C-alpha cells in the first residue's frame, strides 16, 4: 500500500489521471510550459484516447489504493478519433454510478474535457479535483473491503 502521509503527518492523497494523447496530455504539457502548478499527488498516464481507458484500469487504481481517478479527453466533437470521447463518457457514467454504489463517492471519480490549448483549465481542474479528494479524505471504504487491518 502506498504511504498516504507526508512528513508532517498530513493526508497526501494519490490521484491517477488518464489523459488522451491529443488533447488533455498536450493540455497538461501546456500547463507545464506555462508553469501553472497543481499538486504533485496527481500522476498522469498517457493513453491514445479517453476511450482506451478500460473500466478495469479505474477499478485497479482504487483496488491499489488510489483516492481519486480522473479521465481527461478532448471536448465532445473534437476527438482525434471522432467518437472516442463519447464512448468514454458513456462507459464512465455507468462505471462511476456502480462505484458510488460500492462506496466510492462520486467526488472521487471524474471525466473532464481539456483541449490542447487549455493549460489553464488543466491546472484548474487538477487543483479542484485534488481539493475535493482532500476534503473527502482517504479512500477508506474500499480499504475495508481489502481487509486492510489484517494486512497491517
Amino acid at each position, binding site marked *: 500500500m502506498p504511504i498516504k502521509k507526508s512528513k508532517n503527518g498530513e493526508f497526501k492523497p494519490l490521484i491517477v489521471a488518464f489523459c488522451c494523447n491529443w488533447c488533455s496530455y498536450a493540455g497538461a504539457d501546456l*500547463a507545464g510550459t506555462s508553469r501553472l502548478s497543481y499538486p504533485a499527488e496527481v*500522476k498522469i498516464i498517457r*493513453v491514445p*484516447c479517453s*476511450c482506451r481507458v*478500460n473500466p478495469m484500469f479505474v477499478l485497479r487504481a482504487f483496488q491499489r489504493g488510489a483516492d481519486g481517478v480522473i479521465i481527461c479527453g478532448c471536448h465532445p466533437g473534437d476527438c482525434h478519433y471522432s467518437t472516442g470521447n463519447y464512448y468514454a463518457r458513456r462507459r464512465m457514467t455507468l462505471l462511476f454510478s456502480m462505484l458510488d454504489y460500492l462506496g466510492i463517492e462520486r467526488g472521487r471519480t471524474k471525466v473532464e474535457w481539456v483541449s490542447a490549448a487549455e493549460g489553464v483549465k488543466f491546472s484548474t481542474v487538477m487543483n479542484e479535483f485534488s481539493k475535493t479528494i482532500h476534503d473527502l479524505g482517504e479512500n477508506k471504504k474500499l480499504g475495508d473491503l481489502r481487509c486492510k487491518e489484517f494486512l497491517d
Partner: protein
Amino acid sequence: MQKIGVFVCWCGSNIAATVDVKAVAEAVKHEPGVVYSFDYQYMCSEGGQSKIRQAILDYGLTGIVVCSCSPRMHEQTFRKAAASAGLNPYMVEIANIREHCSWIHKNKDEATEKAIILARTAIAKLNLNKPLVAGESSVTKRALVIGGGIAGIQSALDIAEAGYEVDIVEKSPTIGGRMAQLDKTFPTLDCAACILTPKMVDAASSDKINLYTYSEIEAVSGFVGNFSVKIRKKARSIKTELCSGCGVCTEKCPSKKAKSEFNMGLCNRTAIYIPFAQAIPNVPVIDREQCIKFKTGKCGLCQKSCPAGAIDFTQQDEVVERQYGAIVVATGFKPISLENFDEFSYSLSPDVVTSLEFERIMNAAGPTKGQLLRPSDNTHPHTIVFVQCVGSRDTSGCGKPYCSKICCMYTAKHAMLVREKYPDTEVHVFYIDVRTPGKNFDEFYRRAVEEYGVNYIKGMVGKIAEKNGKLMVQGSDLLANEQIVIEADMVVLATAIEPDETAKSLATMLTASIDTNNFFTEAHPKLRPVESPTAGVYLSGVCQGPKDIPETVAQATAAAAKVIGLLSKDKLLSNPCVAGSDEMLCNGCSGCEKVCPYGAISYIDKEFKAAGKVEVRRVAKVNEAICQGCGACTVTCPSGAMDLKGFTNRQIMAEVDAICR
C-alpha cells in the same frame, strides 16, 4: 527479462533545479529489469544521444527509459537514437519529468519523489513492451486545399509548382476570398486586387490546379497519404462549359433585391450574379432563394437572353469523391457579429460601419465607386471616428479574448487613405494600444500620425448615439484624463475577426483539433506551426490564428513545402501501435466492429483444430493499414481478445500499479 537502461536528463536547470536528478537515477536502479542508470545535462544533445547509444551496446540493453521532457517533444529523437544503436524504436519509453513535474512543482522533495514514481511507471510499462515494426502505406500524389482565398491560392500554386496536382475547394462562387474585397494593403498601400488577381489567374490557368468553386466538403475519411474526400458541387444552374461570362443574364435579371455579399450588403445584386468583375471562374450563379423563376416558376429572362444557352434551371448538386495524399486547411475568417455591442449603434445607424464595409466604400470597384460617402444620405463625411478593438481583447464574454492583430494596421491605413484623398476630413482614432510589430509597420503608423495628422486618442468608446443626423461618440481620453464627445458624421468599427463558420464542422470531419475560439490548433506552437496534430492535415492562413497578408502567404508557402515533402515520398511508415485480436479468445460478437470509427475491423470464418476436431469460428480481424490505434475496440471486447499494441491492457495496468505502489 528486459535489460533496461534509465537515462535521467537535467535539461540544464529546467529539471535539475527542482528534481534531484542524481537521486532519481539512484532510486530507479532497484526497479525490476533496470541494469543501468545515468544522468546527463542534455540528453537530447548529440553528447547525450551518444551516451544512450553507447550504453545500449555496452550493456546489451533491450529497452530504455528516458526521464526528460514531454514525449510530444523528444520521443522521436530518442527513438531514432535507440534505432541507430540497433534497438527497436518502440522499446523506448519517456517519463515526462519536465512538463508534468519539475515545471509545475516548487518543492524539491515533492518533485523528486514524483519524478521517481513517474520513472518507475515508465519502467513498469517498458518491462511489458514488445518490439513493434511499422507497416507501410502508399501515398496518393494529389493535394486538396480547402478554401480559395490568398492562403489557399498560394499553397496550391506552390504545390503545383513542384509538379503535384492540387484541387482547391471554395464554398463561394469565386476564388479570391477576403483579400479580393480589400482596397489597399498595408504597409505599402499597393492595391489588393492588383496583387491578388494575377495569382487567381495563375491558379485557374495552371494545368496542375483544379478549381471546385461553389463547392463544399461533405465528408472526409482515410488517413495521411490516403484521404478520401466527398465534395458537394452545389448547383450553379449554369452550364459552366458553355458560359462565356458575357454578363447579359445579370443585366436582364429583374430580381435585384438580394444584398451583395461581396460588398458586405452595402448595395444590391441580381439573383443571377457574378460576385465581382475579376471573379474566377467568370461564370454567374443563380441564387435560388432570390430567383423569380425558382420562386414562382415564371420569368426565365436570363435563359432567353443567354446567347450560349448556358442557363440550366434543372441542374442538381453533384457529389464527387476524390483521393488525396495531403490536405491544406485555408478556411480563413469573417468579422464577428456585432449583436452584443449595442453601445456602438451598429444596427441603428447606417453610418456606423465595420472596417470591411469601409474597405468596400473606399474601393474603386465598390458601391460608391471609391468615393467616400456616408451610406445614409450619400454625402461626404467631414468627421470620421475609428474605434479599435471592437470585440477584440474582450474578456467580458461579449467579444473575443484574443487580439485580432490586423486592426491596428488597417485602421492606420484607412485613416491615412481618408486624409490623403480628402484632406478636409477630420480623423480620430480611439485605441487601447497601438500594436505594430512587423516590418515597416511602426513607420507606417507614425506616418499616419505625423504626416497625415490623424488624431489618435488613447481610450475606449462608451457609447455612440445618433442626434440630428450626427453621431455623438462618447469616449474617454485616458492621457488627458477626461471624458470627451466627438460629433462625427461616420464611425468605423475595427471589428474582431473569427474563424469562418465552417471551421468547426470541418475540424470534426478532419479530426483536426480546434481551440476554444475555433482556430485550428497547430501540432506544436513553435516548432510545427503549419501542421495540425492530425498527420497529413496542414494549416494555412487565418484558420490557425489572426494574421496579415504577408504572414498568411508565408504560412501558405510553408504548408505547401510540408505537403510537397509528404507527396514526394512513395511509401509512408504507419503507426505500429494498432489493435490486434487474439483469435483464440475472440468469440465473434461484433462489438469491436461496431465501435471502430474507421471500419478497420472485419470478421472472417477461420478453421481451428482443437482436440482432434476441426471447428470453424467467426473471429475479428484488424486491418492494420486502416486502424489508427484509438483503442475503442479494446475496451468493448468482452473476452479480452482485442488489445492495442504499445498500450496493452497489461502495460497500462502495470502503470497504474506502479503509481499506486
